[in-house]
């Protein structure tokens, strides 16, 4: 009888597996598991024909078989119901795919991330600093005395006398050099604040990226080469880079860096852009190194600051900076 049970079990499992709809499964349930005529129940009913010694083990085996088959039937039943459309009607492959929401990373974050990846490969690490800082870190330590007209260039938001929202990411230069000895190779992205009214190219809060390199033997030649390398990797190998003299209190010599890109038009023609200013930069002023206790006769360095939102505007053809900060889902959703 044990053998009969085993045979029944195998037969039933095969039948379940090949059943294709609910009706067939119901017929199989009655055939094997039905209380009156079911084949497994039939075995149980015949227990009386066995010796008392045989009865418990066969009975248990029959119960096990019934339970197992009941579970298998239930499983197959749910499979069949779930798969019903596939079996009952042809698939309409012209239906749009079953989609999920797609989130996007902010276009300015994407630019920062792309810039970071390039500098990461050039040996840089990222550094952070507070957004509320003191006049010392924001101006004085950066060789910008408050009684010099250079301090006017950035109209600053104050919390209290001497305490301000940083107007650039350059304070991170000072804070990092105070904490770590040379060599320094850092990139410092972060939010900065100016007393600007909203217009197509200004917002009071915006992102900036600072870069700083300090070591022995760092020269104007390395400075030019590294930033040119960055520009070519970011904007493409055909990119030309130009360094123009400028003035920042914390670098000397100071430079504005312009790029001229090759863009491919929709009809495939290549076209050169005008020179576009992308960053302010320069050799770290020795006074800045002195202010953090570095030996400025031994160590030299260079630094830059750039606005990723401006870069994002150029990259995506956005004419109004404010779009980046309105956070309209229809705008953000484009930057997949």
């Amino acid at each position, binding site marked *: 009888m044990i053998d009969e049970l085993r045979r029944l079990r195998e037969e039933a499992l095969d039948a379940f597996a090949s059943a294709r709809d609910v009706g067939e499964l119901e017929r199989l349930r009655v055939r094997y598991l039905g209380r009156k005529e079911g084949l497994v129940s039939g075995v149980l009913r015949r227990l009386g024909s066995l010796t008392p010694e045989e009865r418990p083990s066969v009975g248990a085996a029959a119960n096990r078989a019934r339970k197992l088959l009941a579970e298998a039937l239930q499983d197959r039943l749910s499979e069949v119901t779930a798969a019903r459309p596939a079996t009952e009607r042809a698939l309409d492959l012209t239906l749009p795919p079953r989609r999920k929401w797609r989130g996007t990373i902010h276009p300015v974050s994407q630019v920062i991330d792309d810039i970071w990846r390039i500098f990461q490969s050039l040996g840089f690490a990222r550094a952070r600093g507070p957004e509320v800082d003191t006049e010392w870190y924001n101006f004085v330590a950066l060789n910008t005395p408050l009684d010099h007209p250079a301090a006017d260039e950035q109209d600053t938001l104050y919390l209290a006398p001497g305490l301000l929202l940083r107007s650039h990411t350059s304070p991170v230069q000072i804070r990092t050099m105070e904490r770590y000895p040379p060599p320094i190779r850092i990139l410092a992205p972060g939010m900065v604040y100016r007393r600007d009214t909203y217009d197509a190219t200004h917002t009071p809060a915006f992102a900036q990226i600072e870069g700083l390199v300090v070591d022995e033997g760092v020269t104007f030649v390395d400075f030019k080469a590294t930033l040119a390398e960055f520009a070519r990797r970011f904007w493409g190998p055909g990119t030309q880079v130009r360094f123009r*003299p400028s003035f920042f209190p914390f670098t000397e010599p100071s430079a504005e860096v312009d790029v001229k890109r090759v863009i491919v038009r929709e009809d495939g023609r290549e076209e050169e852009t005008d020179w576009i200013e992308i960053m302010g930069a320069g050799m770290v002023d020795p006074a800045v190194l002195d202010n953090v206790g570095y030996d400025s006769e031994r160590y030299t360095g260079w630094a830059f600051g750039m606005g990723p939102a401006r870069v994002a505007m150029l990259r995506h053809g956005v004419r109004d900076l404010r779009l980046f900060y309105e956070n309209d889902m229809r705008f953000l959703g484009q930057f997949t």
Partner: protein
Amino acid sequence: MKVSYRWLRDVAPGIGLTVDEAMARLALRGAPVEAVEDLAAGLRDIVVGQVLDARPHPNADRLTLCRVLGPDGEVPVVCGAPDVRSGSFYPFAPVGARLPGGFRIGKRKIRGHFSQGMLCSERELELGDDQAGIMLLEGDYEAGAAFATAAELDDHRLDVEVTPNRGDLLSHVGIARELHPVGQGGIVLPAFPAGAGLEGSFARGGSESASAGVRIRIEDPELCSRYLGAVIRGVTVGPSPRWLANRLRAAGARPINNVVDATNYVMLELGQPLHAFDLDRLAGATIVVGRARPGESLVTLDGEARTITPEMLMIRDADRPVAIAGVMGGRDSEVSSESTDILLECAHFEPKQVRATRRALGMSTDASYRFERWVDPATMETAMLRAAELVLAVAGGELDGEVIDACPAPWEAPVVSLRPSRVRHLLGVEFSSAELVALLAPLGYREARTGSDVVDFVIPGHRGYDTLREVDLIEEVARTYGYDTFPSALSAFRPGTVPDDPVFQLEDRLRGRLAGDGISEAQTPALGPPRHGDVPLLNPMSADESHLRRDRLPGLLTHLERNLARGVRDVRLFELGTAFAPGDNVAAVPRESARVAVVLHGRRAPLQWSGADGRMDVHDIAGVVELIAGEAFPGGRVLPAGAAAGGWGGPVLDGAPLLVPERCYQLVDAMGAVVGWGGEIRAGAMDLPPWAGTVVGAEAVLPSSPAPGVAVTARELPDQPASQRDVAFLLPAGTGAGDVLEAARAGGGRLLEEAEIFDLYEGGDLPPGARSVAIRLRFRARGRTLTDKEVDRSCRRVLKKVKGATGVEPRS
């Protein structure tokens, strides 16, 4: 600095640059041109017309009938001016010409006579305010020639961006010196029309000097190292001659009167601000340069009553202040049409003093702008004599006596040493001493001494403020050599000592996770209205951005509101940013924390054909909080807020929790601290359209030093089949399904591999408020197949535990 290209060429005749070349050269010298304006653009159609004869119009008193010789021969012109002179030349707009304002001249018939063109006034050509009559051109011209060229008005105005260290570029001579290949040597000061030259002599003195009955005394040599005064008697104040007015206009200045225009001309030419006093208005014919006395005030030229304080340096007469030194003159002593005797001032003021004063007064003038950026002390005498000569040429009068020269602190040119080795150290290129001298000499840096490894340079007056260190000279070397001439070669670098900041790394991971979960990154300012923050700004731009935000969520919600207001119904935004709490230390430096915030509204998935687009609710935000926990707080848990003890610590707005506490979760880190909140936003905290549904949001405080990721130890996969049991429970109202699940998990022992709710049902034949919760239990043992008996036993334990913990029994 607005530069007239003609003026530039006049002071540097050998410059040989077109406008475009000059602009390109300036850009590469560090003074880019922001804008260029073709001043003759509106005058292209205007020609020189010669009036052959003129007679009164027979049908009108005030009109004149003229025959005008222009480019197309003789034409009849009816002119509105009564005094047209035969044989004279006038600017003429022929038929078809366009005036600067855009008006097009047509053929017209005026009172029975044809007019084929127009003789123009200064006002019609936008060359001045004189509308009294048509503009007579003095001298001999060719009829039909282009008017702009003939009148020397074909010019370009360059708007040059001058950096704060280059006060020396705030003049035409300064710009020319920078552009000229031979530098200073190529500069000439052109003779004035009707100028007679002036060989002035100086009455030299220390703190005090006098001449022509006028006495000058400097009380504060630290703030005013030198003061020159020239007395000119018998001037006739009136409009400037046309050449002078045109020149000022071309450089963006407004002509005022001949005396004031003469001082402005010299300022724009040489960079030295000057001032003219009406000598009769100076009490005691005396100038005293000294600090203001307490309680004094002054009405300045612009009519403003200025409150002056004793720190400010004033120009005084015998009784009272008459000018704010280096900033602006007083109205009472201003040169007017009645003035006959004047005193010209040419002084050197200390930059920081001028800057402090004009900032305290909240004003900036052409003079203060230059003084605070340093004015060349070596050019003062030239400027004084040139101004005096120009006044004599355009306003008449005579120089009385010697130029008064009070000079308590003569300027001495600084000497700066430059080491070729240091040049190489910074710039990476080798320059010999001779090469350095050759690069710097044209800019006025004179070689004083050359040693074995050092060259001493004498700094010229015009760079005497910002070129005082070796590195300043090195910049001049680099600039003159040409930044683009330097090679560009990557060299090896040593790794830095600074580790990559872990908060940035955490933010990167969160950004990827949340965007991957269908939420878009927003960026909002950290500034908000007072209800969004506790840390006020001292000088906010607007009431809407007057405070630093205490949480990010309220700001993000305003962006959700804006999306809904624009009809965008499905909004899922997250943000990474800083929040600020009031500082508790003496310096009151706010405490900053990095935050992540999320808001969700609308469908769970895009509108589609197969359902699955239900509206998001608290359970969705709970999932997002769990996702944040997974990245930022290993071992952290998301719990219903009610389960945690203590008061509300989450985001607040208008003094109340921003989230509904009964529909809110807390994120608890592995140490048990509450670090985040997520739930339904209180309806009263938002301004939403009536159709809006539930808004859920979350905010978490990111760890300031996130733990480095720990490598997971992989578990082996099971080699035995699992046994599964489904159990349904009937939950009375008020019993948490999660509590039942929790109890089930706790009761299953080590054989229970997993327990999950797979069905939740209410209504139908269930008692009101009751729910049926179906839990699937999966049992498995390592290394062997479980027997039914074992599974049954475990199941019973689960049921017992559930009943013990929650009182709930399985459905029969």
